[in-house]
């Protein structure tokens, strides 16, 4: 409840409350996503899957977490569009400079290592284009958790995957959610 998802500083006030910066659809090729390009989506899916990996129960990919994030970025999270666009680009630049291949092509182990560097801000200015990788990482982390553990009506948590994993009857039905003896 006290979580601060992001800070909108006063200098961007006109931007935040006047005209919202929306990326025009014509910049993207045909895609099943509203916001992400197909290339960006491949990277996003890999990132989300490492945050909530498949084990004995489905992970972020199966739950459709990317559809949650994609949908909200076109709506209430539109202020975060730039953080995602730049974040994914910076990550891919980092990966291609280091290994010549994109993030999603790395092994799971390597992906986790890269994400740990992002989380702990252990990237130099040249490695992450002057930006703060933890800023993008923390946003991605919150949104992935929301998409996986939140209500399916928002685009993620397909077939109540996380509710089943947590053994809760949720969403609940009135008069059926009493204490069972």
């Amino acid at each position, binding site marked *: 409840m006290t979580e601060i998802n992001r800070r909108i500083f006063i200098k961007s006030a006109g931007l935040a409350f006047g005209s919202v910066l929306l990326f025009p659809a014509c910049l993207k090729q045909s895609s099943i996503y509203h916001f992400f390009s197909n290339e960006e989506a491949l990277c996003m899916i890999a990132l989300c899957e490492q945050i909530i990996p498949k084990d004995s129960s489905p992970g972020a990919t199966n739950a459709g977490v990317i559809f949650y994030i994609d949908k909200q970025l076109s709506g209430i999270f539109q202020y975060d569009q730039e953080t995602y666009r730049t974040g994914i680009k910076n990550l891919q630049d980092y990966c291609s400079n280091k290994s010549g291949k994109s993030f999603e092509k790395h092994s799971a182990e390597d992906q986790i290592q890269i994400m740990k560097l992002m989380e702990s801000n252990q990237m130099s200015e040249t490695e992450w284009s002057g930006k703060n990788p933890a800023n993008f990482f923390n946003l991605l982390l919150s949104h992935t*958790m929301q998409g996986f*553990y939140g209500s399916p009506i928002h685009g993620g948590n397909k077939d109540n995957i996380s509710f089943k994993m947590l053994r809760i009857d949720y969403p609940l039905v009135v008069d059926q959610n009493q204490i069972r003896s």
Partner: protein
Amino acid sequence: MANKHVNAIIVGAGAGGGIVAKELATKGLSVVLFERGEWPNYDEHPNDELISQRTEVLGSPFGPDHIKNPRTLTYKGGSKQIVTPIHGNYNNVAACVGSGTVSYGAMAWRFMQEDFKLKTVYGSVEGSTLDDWPITYEELEPYYEKAEWEIGVSGDDTQNPFAPPRKKKQPMPPFEYNAEAKVLYDASKRLGLHPFPIPMLRNSVPNNNREACIRNLTCCGFACPVDAKNGTQNTVIPIAIKTGNCDLRTGSKVVEIMIDDRGKATGVKYFDKDDKPQIQTADVVVVAGAAIETARLLLNSKSRLFPNGAGNNSDWVGRNLAGHAYTGAYGLFDYDILDFAGPGATIAWCDFNHHNPGIIGGGLLANEFNRLPYLYTGIRPPGSARWGKDHKEFQRSMYHRTAQIVGPIQEMPMYESRVTVDPEVKDFWGIPVASLSGDRHPLDYEHCKFLSAKAEAILKEAGAYQTWQSIGGQGGPSGGQHQNGTARMGNDKKTSVVNKNGQIHEIDNLFVADGSAMVNGGGFNPALTIMALGFRVGEYIAKNFASIRVT
């Protein structure tokens, strides 16, 4: 067409305002009750954690609109941030008929006698504006009783040896303990503590032609699917409307109280449902918009005699913004200790509310309201993974096995912790927004550490194999949950905003009837106290302004 003059305007249909409306309308006064939101509707956001008062990441289920109603925060060092209701530090209070009484956890606490005289009991505190209330517990007691019986409370204070004296028992029997509470009950008894069932503004039995609570998972932060939670929206407001004397105007945003050159309130300016500017005149104006919006409205009401805002000639409007610093501990068990019987919180202790060595006041402890899955992703022992395989495994294996005991530390009131109106940022209607600034008192953190240690001790005794504390009270600006203090009640007009009847000093037909008038937050959830103040202010107006009644 001009609106017909009425006896009384009430701004805000929440815990305080809804009650004043009923008190006046049933005494024959004509009333307009303004509410910027609408009637709440359970079906719009059923069981949706991401649009709830607990986790507002995708919006506030009961408003206000997140684009139209920004606020600003100023941090130490001067950096300023614009926040909207979906940000935690906005300190949102539900904008709908009933307001927080629709979505609250519904704890029904009476403050203790000491809470009304902290300065007398503990002395002055350096750096704090700590003071006594101009009224005692005994003076408020009859109104607590009215709140308990007219709104509806389940509880049994005889099980709480620290409960303040009462004349009449609570109207409904207490709720049964859930599985977690039963374990904590035994453990705390072994420690010599005094557990008892939490008094609740919910129906333990059918009441007032509405059902008993069905103990569903989602309660705190949500509307009730069977209307078993008692708020002003399903008790006093319908009674007020039924008299025919109360006109409830929803979707109406009051932006200014008009004060004439004789220093009397004459009415309000507002934007109606269709956002058209309107004027409503009245003999009496009562402000009950919760501590932040009440202060903003008073400050935005500038007039010749009150150039800095209504009742603000001593510069105390908006000051002493305080809330509760929530603090406590978690414990991991090797079995499913939670049964998720709603609302989750069922057991409390008042052993640490007062007379703790070295502590000013203290707070109640209780087990926590049911935590929903997203909220739980942030609950981990220190040093745990925030993501990945281990995080997911913890979520799966421990969701049913994590007990939590938590309580509210009343923040020390601070002169510089305040609501002002922002000089630059305006809302959708062009009105300067509330700006929050100031820091918390360093004692808050010390008090939190004290209470968290007590919570942890109970969990350890209960058999938790691992425990850790979650300590609140740091970071500013203040406010947090249970905002209060911004139109402080007092006898001296130089150091307060309203007198003991809720009447603004120097404007005798302008009143405040919400948490703004509170001198401190108490070591308890404040809803019942705000309701009691509402009954008291309502009775005073009905008695003293009877001559204005339109016949």
